């Protein structure tokens, strides 16, 4: 064993970590504790007095139809986004792993969407699907679909799912491609000699062997869909029509800053905070451990 080197104690290490600590305190710990405190308060209609009510805000949420509806929608939205973007990324990575010529160009192009800001991604999809001007509604009309996400809640939901999934494909693609490229080539060759065609090789070998990545991405995508899609929703539907696309993060904003129910909004954000902490724990606990094979 090497002897540990002891440096004389100095202020330097503390100074070096100080900026990070200060940022975390100012932008995370302080607002988070404020939110927790806030969630125990109810304000009167005029904002003149506040009352400390313990868990009343939470109790109210538990019985609020709108909140529970939003919860269900968020889960539906997240599952759709995760499944859609992960399967698209898996297929694309499967192809990218096979091609030799032009691989770099192909990869670079696939990674670009990740660099697009959420609001811009949303705007892009709004344009493409604008019921009067957009190209897609025009095409859809030929197959008899009257697209209007301003009026039709299902259309609106589909649109935000597409936009959110599309943006996440690049990220998932990178991870899947890296996972596939770490599978020994000879393994796939052995399968080819055993008589498995490309599709069979994919399902019998590549897919099971990238399962640790699939699990990791599942958590990441769930976190993304739950918390990182505010920009897209805000740009595309603003939670409408008739709350059809109001997922939890959007509802926090809407109730708090539009509806000015600060206590209830804070309680919702506390619940979201607990959710994200839980998902992070799951990820740290299980992602490191390779999935059994």
């Amino acid at each position, binding site marked *: 064993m090497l002897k540990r080197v002891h440096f004389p104690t100095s202020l330097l290490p503390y100074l070096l970590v100080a900026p990070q600590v200060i940022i975390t305190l100012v932008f995370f710990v302080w607002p988070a504790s404020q939110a927790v405190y806030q969630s125990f308060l109810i304000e009167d209609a005029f904002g003149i007095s506040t009352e400390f009510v313990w868990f009343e805000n939470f109790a109210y949420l538990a019985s609020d139809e709108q909140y529970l509806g939003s919860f269900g929608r968020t889960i539906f939205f997240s599952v759709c986004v995760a499944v859609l973007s992960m399967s698209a990324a898996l297929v694309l990575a499967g192809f990218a792993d096979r091609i030799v010529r032009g691989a770099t160009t192909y990869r670079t192009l696939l990674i670009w969407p990740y660099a697009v800001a959420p609001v811009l991604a949303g705007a892009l999809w709004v344009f493409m699907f604008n019921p009067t001007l957009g190209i897609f509604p025009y095409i859809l009309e030929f197959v008899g679909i009257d697209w209007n996400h301003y009026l039709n809640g299902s259309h609106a939901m589909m649109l935000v799912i597409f936009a959110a999934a599309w943006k996440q494909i690049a990220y998932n693609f990178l991870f899947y491609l890296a996972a596939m490229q770490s599978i*020994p080539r*000879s393994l796939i*060759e*052995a399968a*080819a000699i*055993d*008589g498995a065609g490309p599709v069979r090789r994919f399902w019998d*070998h590549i897919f099971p062997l990238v399962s640790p990545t699939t699990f990791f991405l599942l958590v990441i995508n769930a976190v993304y869909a739950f918390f990182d899609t505010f920009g897209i929703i805000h740009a595309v539907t603003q939670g409408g029509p008739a709350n059809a696309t109001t997922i939890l993060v959007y509802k926090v904003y809407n109730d708090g800053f539009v509806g000015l129910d600060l206590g209830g909004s804070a309680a919702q954000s506390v619940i979201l905070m607990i959710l994200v902490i839980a998902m992070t724990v799951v990820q740290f606990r299980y992602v490191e451990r390779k999935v059994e094979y």
Partner: protein
Amino acid sequence: MASITMKDLVKAYGDTEVLHHIEGDINDGEFIVIVGPSGCGKSTLLRMVAGLETVTSGEISIGDKVVNKLEPADRDIAMVFQNYALYPHMSVRENMAYGLKIRKIAKAEIDRRVREAADILEIGQYLDRKPRQLSGGQRQRVAMGRAIVRNPQVFLFDEPLSNLDAKLRVQMRLEIRKLQQRLGVTSIYVTHDQVEAMTLGDRLMVLNGGYVEQFGTPIELYDRPATLFVAGFIGSPSMNFLPAEAKDGTLTLGNGATVSGGGHSTGAVTLGIRPEHLMHDENGPIGISVQMFEQLGANTLLHGVLEGTDTEIVASMPGHVSTGEGSVMRFSAEASVLHVFDAASGKRIEE
């Protein structure tokens, strides 16, 4: 079972040609070893036969079918890889059954064949384990099992033993040989280990820099190496090479000593003598200034230089010899075991 024919086979990556006009006929049931130094193109050649590399030009046939354009799956071959390439997420049983399952063979038949192969290779008790729960040698057996259950026309081996320790390597070598003789399947085996090559192969193809140097039985290669490269590569310890001048059937060595040989050639040649063919002989023409002895037990390797020159030379003497360092010892060799090569081309000069 099938023969394999390679006709004017060329492999190029872009503009670099790595295999040049390979010719070779492999008979039905023969065990062929492709041997050569690292990077000479052994794996590439094997992978072309397997269908894992495209053929740039020329023709490969298995049986009487040209397979250039066939997918690996359609060539009826099985391959054992250096890293075994077992499917890590499948049990030993599933690994072995995989190829049969794809070919839609009945479940009972698959079970029977897997059992049979497992019995031959003595891996019956590991059938339900995953590859990572096996030792290197056991994985090696599973890889072989996966090849033999398929009952293919051709076995291809790419350095299958190079990850094993020396003792296991010798044992597995014998087993592979026995297995091949028992099954009688045409096999191509790639290795860079000349001992492995000599002991396994019915015939050896010696590759060097993408050229076939010689293709023949181990004894032919030992007795009549066609080139300097083969002479130096086959046999251990390797052959001594002494620069010499040939004239009228006499070879003059660097220090003026003469031995008879060289046939009708004149000019610069290289005389090759295997260490085991140098006989201790007080009146011999070849004097060696002894530098050190290497005791191997059954015999002793004498390292030195040709007297009066700095050409290194090794002689193998029976029994224990340990005195004489610094002195000159004299040796002779029979004319029939001398090899003479053209100094410029490295080609053998026949008597």
